């Protein structure tokens, strides 16, 4: 039974002033009630394609438009953005900027009131309830966490009672637990209300788990549109377009089983059926020497911030911590656990309300933040926040040059080389891609030549390829800095890079351990709302001990056995 909701025929589009077409001869049909993942590398035209569905292209972005797009039988060329928005809801990647009203209820009611719907109040309540945020209705939008703000953005398009919802990269700005919640929400809307869901997605795990069909975009046109199972079979093709296969698929390949599984349990069952899991030949973990020099130490530190209503909200609570030379520390914990605050205290940007922070032998209270920056560099979660100058080179140069470092030029050149940005040195940092921006901020941090490097969510909102790039680069830093600290939700980063994991909860250290011990601790995992990488989950399901942290370690466990050709 074919009942198309979106029909794209011979569509080409070129942005005004652009050199070439962003979309070329697109032919695509999306069935009513489908759950579609649109995948493809950066610049493949995914977002532009999605903007043709609600008429932003060609009505708001008026470039050269040829061909036709029909949404629910209506030609978008004849219609308008306002009219099409009743049918198609759009949630942006930077969804925070899509919130235009001060309170949650106003935000959700904004669309229905603008269109003069008399049932705007019911629509608002219904949309708030549908995404489970009725209790937040009277909050101000800037008080929300990322996950909550995404729900508000979703509710505000649901209030229009759309037939199609487009969600642009929900994983990018959310922690994994929140991203899973978004997908669960979308799945429920898709099942219960028959809403067609279209997501733009880089992560094969999410595609495997939630999507019903997959559109692969390349160079402005769909390569194919296939049911999810068939799409995931084409792992090689996906990898070529920047979508590496999920870890379980890789793991099955190295275990000699092959094929595609959509969940960890399915993969474990297939591996178990094919062969008995071999225990890992204990990868010898070198015990870190305890006598290494302390780089930074926190002594009974408490800190908090004042809220709008005036009282101090405690964030860090009587925390003791010592980080030593050679540590690769990952700080984990849910939103609001105090990760960022702790890092900023360690870097001496803030001083604690009580307790002391001793950085490289001296108390942070004794020096200005600008002087402490010579010992500790803190890199923001959003790279754009670190671009102050008109070019990447000028940004990297700022710190050494203003300190009259005679070899500034040489240092900057070396660092640019190291982060592979030499050819982009004269570009404005804001115009770079996500992965390049992240590397540029890393370069800014390195130019400060700190003993302690603190990075806030360095892999957030990166596609898988850029993420692996950043992880590799971090691994190479050991010689340049004494101690690196990362606050992260990214368990891949934890398992592949960290040697020490510190779990925070309500501003206290609840665990100080190794990644392997972390992933073996069920209670801690559920408490910190963590989802281990798939290969770790698979190792657990197969009862492997010690747990494999990477696909390579997983492969090592199977190595001694004969792999069928």
């Amino acid at each position, binding site marked *: 039974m074919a009942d198309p909701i979106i029909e794209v025929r011979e569509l080409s589009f070129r942005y005004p002033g652009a050199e070439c077409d962003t979309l070329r001869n697109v032919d695509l049909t999306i069935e009513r009630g489908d759950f579609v993942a649109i995948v493809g590398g950066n610049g493949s035209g995914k977002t532009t394609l999605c903007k043709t569905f609600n008429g932003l292209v060609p009505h708001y972005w008026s470039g050269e438009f040829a061909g036709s797009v029909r949404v629910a039988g209506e030609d978008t060329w004849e219609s308008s953005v*306002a009219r099409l928005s009743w049918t198609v809801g759009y949630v942006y990647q930077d969804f925070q*900027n899509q919130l*235009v009203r*001060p309170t949650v209820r106003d935000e959700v009611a904004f669309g229905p009131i603008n269109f*003069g719907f008399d049932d705007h109040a019911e629509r608002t309540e219904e949309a708030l309830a549908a995404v489970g945020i009725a209790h937040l209705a009277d909050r101000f939008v800037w008080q929300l966490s990322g996950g909550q703000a995404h729900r508000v953005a979703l509710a505000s398009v649901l209030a229009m009672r759309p037939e199609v919802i487009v969600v642009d990269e929900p994983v990018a700005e959310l922690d994994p637990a929140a991203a899973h919640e978004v997908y669960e929400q979308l799945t429920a809307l898709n099942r219960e209300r028959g809403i067609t869901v279209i997501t733009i997605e880089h992560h094969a795990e999410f595609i495997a788990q939630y999507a019903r069909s997959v559109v692969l975009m390349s160079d402005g046109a769909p390569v194919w549109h296939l049911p999810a199972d068939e799409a995931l079979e084409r792992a090689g093709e996906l990898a070529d377009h920047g979508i590496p296969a999920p870890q379980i698929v890789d793991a099955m390949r190295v275990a000699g089983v092959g094929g595609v599984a959509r969940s960890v349990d399915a993969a474990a069952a297939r591996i178990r059926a094919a062969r008995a899991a071999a225990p890992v030949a204990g990868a010898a973990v070198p015990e870190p020497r305890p006598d290494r020099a302390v780089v930074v130490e926190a002594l009974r530190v408490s800190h908090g*911030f004042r809220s709008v209503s005036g009282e*101090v909200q405690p964030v860090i609570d009587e925390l003791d911590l010592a980080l030593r030379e050679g540590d690769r520390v990952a700080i984990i914990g849910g939103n609001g656990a105090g990760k960022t605050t702790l890092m900023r205290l360690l870097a001496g940007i803030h001083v604690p309300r009580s307790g002391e922070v001793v950085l490289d032998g001296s108390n942070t209270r004794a*020096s200005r933040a600008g002087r402490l920056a010579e010992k500790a560099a803190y890199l923001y979660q959003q790279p754009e926040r670190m671009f102050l100058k008109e070019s990447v080179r000028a940004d990297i140069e700022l710190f050494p040059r203003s300190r009259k470092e005679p070899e500034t030029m040489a240092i900057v050149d070396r660092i640019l080389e190291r982060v592979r940005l030499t050819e982009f040195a004269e570009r404005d940092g804001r115009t770079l891609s996500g992965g390049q921006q992240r590397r540029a901020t890393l370069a800014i941090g390195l130019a400060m030549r700190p003993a302690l490097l603190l990075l806030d969510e360095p892999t957030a909102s990166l596609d898988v390829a850029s993420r692996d790039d950043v992880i590799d680069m971090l691994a190479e830093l050991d010689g340049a800095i004494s101690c690196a600290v990362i606050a992260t939700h990214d368990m891949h980063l934890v398992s592949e890079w960290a040697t020490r994991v510190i779990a925070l909860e309500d501003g206290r250290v609840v665990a100080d351990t190794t990644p392997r011990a972390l992933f073996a601790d069920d209670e801690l995992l559920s408490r910190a709302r963590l989802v281990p990488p798939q290969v770790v989950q698979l190792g657990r399901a197969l009862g492997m001990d010690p747990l494999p942290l990477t696909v390579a370690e997983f492969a090592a466990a199977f190595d001694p056995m004969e792999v069928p050709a």
Partner: protein
Amino acid sequence: MSVARKQRDVVSVEWVKLELIRTAYSTRGGLFAAMDPRAVLAWYVMLALAPWFTHNLTTIACLFALGVVSVAVARVGPLVLGLFVIGLGFELVYLVLAATLFGGDFTTFVALTEVTMKIGVVSLASLAAFVSLDPEKLSDALLALRCPPTIAFAVSYGYRMMPILVEEFSTVMEGYRLRQAPPAKAGFLGWRHLVHWATLAVKAFYPIFLNTAKSVRTTVEALEARGFTFATIDGRGRRIRIAGLRYRWLDLVVVLATAALIAAGFAIGAEWPLYRG
């Protein structure tokens, strides 16, 4: 000389941000916050115009006192109040200086004071009224008074942007503070630090505008998709928005009481007149 650093809760950028939010969204409550926004605007116009109809210093002083009382019942926060007091203080100092330097005497001073007092009354009324109106109320009131919807929205969106801009400013300043070397010596009264800070504050504008411009693109698209332009043409949205506005007894009482007090001010002025020169 190094002073130990401490976490400061007032007179920091963070504090300014919180104060602005508290002020803009009238989180402190107060008498006028409970009123209908149209009545508040009417009240404001009344008190702001009154001083311009007289030269009688007694009347103006009464109106000034009324303004002070309004500010108190509106629970105006320390930041804007502080700025107002500082502004008024500087104005007085300047008047004294100007009067002496240009060969004036006490009468010149009094003459200039009259205008200062009048402006003071208007400022106090503005503080009381606009601190009590959150952007939604203000924009609904403007809509109800037949203002173009674009202006009404601009008011509300301007307020929404404010915390974003302040946040952006504090981030950029922090970046400069950490990465640009501070002056090695403080100089007389720390003038080198002052110059350093002033330079940074100016340099901060380039990144702020570029970063904000980028995020606003999404906002503008979202506005389009959610019928903002549609609502400026179609009247139904306006009807729904202003349907929530109701005049109540409190509005009438406050407006009448203020009218009576202003009248009383003029009466007292007539009884004990005091004119300049």
